[in-house]
């Protein structure tokens, strides 16, 4: 379990980090929490010649309200998000998602920016950020871009990041009153990657009609998917048991799972998409009704 040799850099500014990435191109990799990259290097599934450790760059680890959004620095650890009072109060779905990731030691190191950049279709963050329609800020040597999460998640282990870009911030709009969210996950055993998981965020208007619906899927496609048909089934409707059942059926159509020899056939996963979407919506609605 010894990775191949590499050269290690620990720059202390984004400018230095991006110029190192530019210089070394696809031979270089950013190191954040290392909870995906280091296992990959140890198994020699990937052997970057240059490692650019961004942990010594100050100012990438924060959670704050900025205007009408909550901004989360890319280096913020899963555990910090899980236990943040701000997140729990304003965007409970994110704290709940963080708590489902791996185990406590993984959550102490792993970062939200690393997870999203890694683009693992079984990763939990992508689905949650789809559900809340977040965006990401990425910085290159000369310019900065902001991308909607739908455009950032491209394919299996493929994000929209260029070789010389670093994800610096995740930004999520603050939900209106009467909003609620849930992350529901089926796993073989505690700490495992999802067999299937669903992120749901809803808002209700004063009459109980659904004014916002966001649904993201984990381990149900070649990347974290938006369940668009399921969202459409909720939006503009009162969230009756029938409407929820229809949305759950629609989520099973949105899901595009590939069979996984470890975690279940495509048929099984599709059925779990339905079951877990139903449970997720029910929980999110319950929570939306309690929030003033």
């Amino acid at each position, binding site marked *: 379990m010894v990775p191949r040799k590499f050269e290690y850099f620990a720059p202390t500014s984004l400018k230095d980090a991006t110029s190192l990435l530019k210089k070394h191109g696809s031979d270089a990799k950013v190191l954040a929490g290392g909870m995906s990259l*280091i296992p990959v290097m140890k198994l020699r599934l990937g052997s970057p010649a240059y490692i650019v450790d961004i942990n010594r760059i100050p100012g990438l680890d924060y959670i704050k309200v900025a205007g009408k959004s909550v901004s989360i620095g890319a280096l913020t650890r899963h555990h910090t998000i899980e236990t943040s009072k701000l997140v729990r109060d304003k965007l409970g779905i994110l704290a709940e998602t963080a708590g489902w990731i791996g185990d406590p030691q993984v959550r102490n190191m792993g970062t939200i920016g690393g997870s999203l950049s890694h683009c693992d279709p079984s990763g939990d963050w992508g689905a949650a950020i789809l559900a809340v329609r977040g965006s990401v800020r990425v910085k290159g040597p000369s310019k900065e871009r902001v991308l909607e999460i739908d455009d950032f998640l491209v394919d299996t282990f493929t994000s929209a990041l260029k070789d010389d870009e670093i994800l610096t911030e995740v930004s999520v709009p603050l939900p209106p009153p009467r909003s609620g969210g849930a992350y529901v996950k089926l796993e073989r055993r505690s700490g495992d990657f999802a067999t299937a998981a669903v992120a749901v965020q809803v808002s209700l208007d004063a009459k109980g009609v659904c004014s916002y619906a966001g649904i993201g899927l984990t381990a149900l496609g070649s990347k974290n998917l938006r369940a668009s048909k399921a969202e459409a089934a909720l939006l503009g409707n009162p969230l009756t048991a029938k409407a929820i059942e229809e949305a759950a059926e629609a989520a099973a159509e949105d899901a595009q799972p590939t069979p996984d020899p470890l975690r279940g056939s495509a048929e099984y996963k599709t059925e779990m998409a339905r079951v877990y979407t139903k449970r997720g919506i029910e929980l999110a609605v319950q929570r939306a009704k309690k929030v003033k």
Partner: protein
Amino acid sequence: MAKASKQTVSEGLQRVTLTINGKSYSRDVEPRLLLVHFIRDVAELTGTHVGCETSNCGACTIILNGKSVKSCTMFAVQAAGAKIETIEGLAKDGELHPIQNAFWENHGLQCGFCTPGMIMQAYWLLKENPNPTDDEIRMGLTGNLCRCTGYQNIVKSVRAAAKEMR
């Protein structure tokens, strides 16, 4: 985290200086050296175990700047400047730490291979949450595998330690 040593010492090696249990260690190492091997082979503190080397078992759990981490899933160079605590640092003046004592009293170990990691993880858990429920203890230890005890006595030990430490 403290400043990294930028100095490149000799071809391919990098100077890593860090503190383990209050004592400073410095060595020129390859960047690919895992932290657990720095701890075991350079610092010669073999209490921290290597179980799976695949980030699953938690036998290599240590405390890095106050947080529990799996030292097999981190390079030593990442820990330059860090303050590390390992199982060897818990007993003070020949007195077992209350968590160690509780594992002893409650048969929280059989072969003992998982124990250093279990105890370091429990140590972090009880700092975060001094009064955990049994469920919280179990969730707090999901990153640590034990092949012997069936976990019952580990949970019991952590519960007893929590009571003792409050």
